[in-house]
């Protein structure tokens, strides 16, 4: 078939190869462009935080990364391997590099916490029962849940579910851990505990981590770099300080909780019509100098109150 997608040539794997690399990734869902030529990369051992308004495609980018969705166009490489053209079997193998913490924890309801954490070990290794039990104990102790190992997901709080979800995500010591809003719905103390765990996994276990969050306090404390997502694109990537002191209206508006900056009404209208926003951003994958990107933003003549999608429509 002449139009068939040809698998990309495997990239030579070097120390500088980005662990995760998005290049020109687009995805349209229900007629709306969710990802619009998305470009960014995450270095090995780095904790990369993705921030952005609800409904701008942050979670969709994670789903594309683990192959739960396929992009309409563009390339996604994980440790140099193109994943968009992988067969289901190849995807299964590739996914073992990942641990994913879902928003709700996504624990299997009919298994207790011990069995939930043991599940990936049971499915993918030939370890003895004793060895499995040791690892489960180690992971559950890490998230401070060993004493609750006999409990079922329905019997524990949201914070405990997330911690147990994290224990399960790292059971196989994955190379990359993805977090989909790890702190949402948690009290500040538990949220801080999760942040400490994320930092510990980076520092002690050298894991590459991608965290999608709304919580700026958390983002500043855990991130090596932060990327601001705005309607399917990264409009700025930089260190915590660079994001905090950003000149971009959209970024300032977001990080200040709406107290500063404004969202272009024109951008919003253009996005609703399925066109690109009025700004463009260039992100050079893997370039250490490209921490803070040059962004061309059309002037907004009348800063109007932001018209953003509500997070939860009652």
């Amino acid at each position, binding site marked *: 078939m002449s139009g068939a997608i040809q698998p990309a040539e495997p990239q030579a794997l070097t120390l500088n190869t980005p662990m995760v690399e998005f290049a020109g990734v687009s995805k349209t869902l*229900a007629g709306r462009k969710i990802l619009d030529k998305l470009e960014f990369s995450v270095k090995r051992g780095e904790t990369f935080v993705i921030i952005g308004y609800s409904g701008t495609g942050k979670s969709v980018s994670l*789903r594309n990364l*683990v192959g*739960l969705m396929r992009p309409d166009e563009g390339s996604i490489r994980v440790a140099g391997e193109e994943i968009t053209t992988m067969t289901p079997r190849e995807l*299964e*193998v590739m*996914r*073992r590099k*990942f641990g*994913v913490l*879902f*928003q*709700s924890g*996504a*624990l*299997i*309801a*009919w298994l207790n916490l011990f069995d939930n954490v043991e*599940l*990936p070990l049971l*499915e*993918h290794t030939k370890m003895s029962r004793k060895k499995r039990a040791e690892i489960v104990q180690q992971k559950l102790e890490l998230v401070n849940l060993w004493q609750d190992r006999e409990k079922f997901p329905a019997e524990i709080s949201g914070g405990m579910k997330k911690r147990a*979800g994290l224990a*399960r995500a790292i059971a196989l010591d994955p190379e990359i851990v993805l977090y989909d809003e790890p702190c949402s719905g948690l009290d500040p103390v538990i949220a801080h505990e999760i942040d400490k765990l994320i930092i510990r996994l980076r520092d002690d276990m050298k894991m590459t981590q991608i965290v999608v969050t709304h919580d700026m306090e958390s983002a500043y404390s855990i991130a090596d770099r932060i990327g601001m997502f705005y309607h399917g694109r990264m409009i700025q990537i930089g260190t915590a300080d660079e994001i905090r002191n950003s000149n971009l209206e959209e970024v300032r508006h977001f990080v200040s909780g709406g107290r500063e900056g404004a969202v272009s009404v024109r951008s919003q209208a253009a996005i609703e019509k399925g066109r690109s926003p009025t700004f463009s951003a260039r992100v050079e994958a893997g370039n250490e100098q490209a921490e803070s990107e040059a962004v061309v933003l059309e002037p907004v003549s009348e800063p109007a109150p932001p018209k953003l999608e509500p997070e939860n429509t009652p």
Partner: protein
Amino acid sequence: MNTDHIGIRSVKGAGYTLLLLLESLGYVTHIWKRRRAIFTQMHVIGTQSLAIACFFMLLVGMVFALQTGIEFARFGQTSLIGLVIVSAMVRELGPWMTAFVLIARVGSSMAAEIGTMKTAEEIDALEVMSINPVSFVVMPRVIGYAIMGPILTIFGTLVGVGGGMLVAYAQLGVRPDDFLRFAERGAEPLDIYWGLLKSLVFSLCAAAVACSNGMRTTGGAVGVGRASRNTVVIALTLTVFLNYLLTSFYRMVKRLVAGLV
């Protein structure tokens, strides 16, 4: 939002259901690995449904005996009641009514359970852990249903015949030995096997419909409710339809066999 025409959606749904059933049967090689899950499902589907299925079938047998008995009594043929009840129970009412009970009790909850897993991202979590959801979630339910459906049918049929016998004795004065004398003719071995085969087909069909609706659930609690309702409606309709097809086919085979003999 799914904007397809309802006809296209139905065809897609039917295709998905059939493929899901075939895929889950393809994972029978995982039976040993999933034995715990299969036993759990057998317990939920079979053991926990036994009482309600037997109670239901007892009353079906009793009402059936009462209604047919009144007509037979008018012609002085009450002794034939055993023949009618046993043949109806073994060939039709047993497999059919047990399937109905199971769809209402098990099919709907199965769809709701898988639907909740889908909306709570548990199915996605399995996929990213490289655990195939069809092997982990669907196959144990399909196999559990396929084993327990026919077993419950056997129990249900026996209880139904017992109920009929009870009413025939208590209200129509037909003694149990008279009841059973003609009963043998109502249930030849082939009839019994065919009844069980029907039950197996109904079970596979109901399990596939329930799992398919669960796996296609979208839209939170409303979606879970929809999956559960659709399962009951579609599985009941399919059961009635398949029953007609299988019965017609069986009669054709029997006629052919009789012609050959």
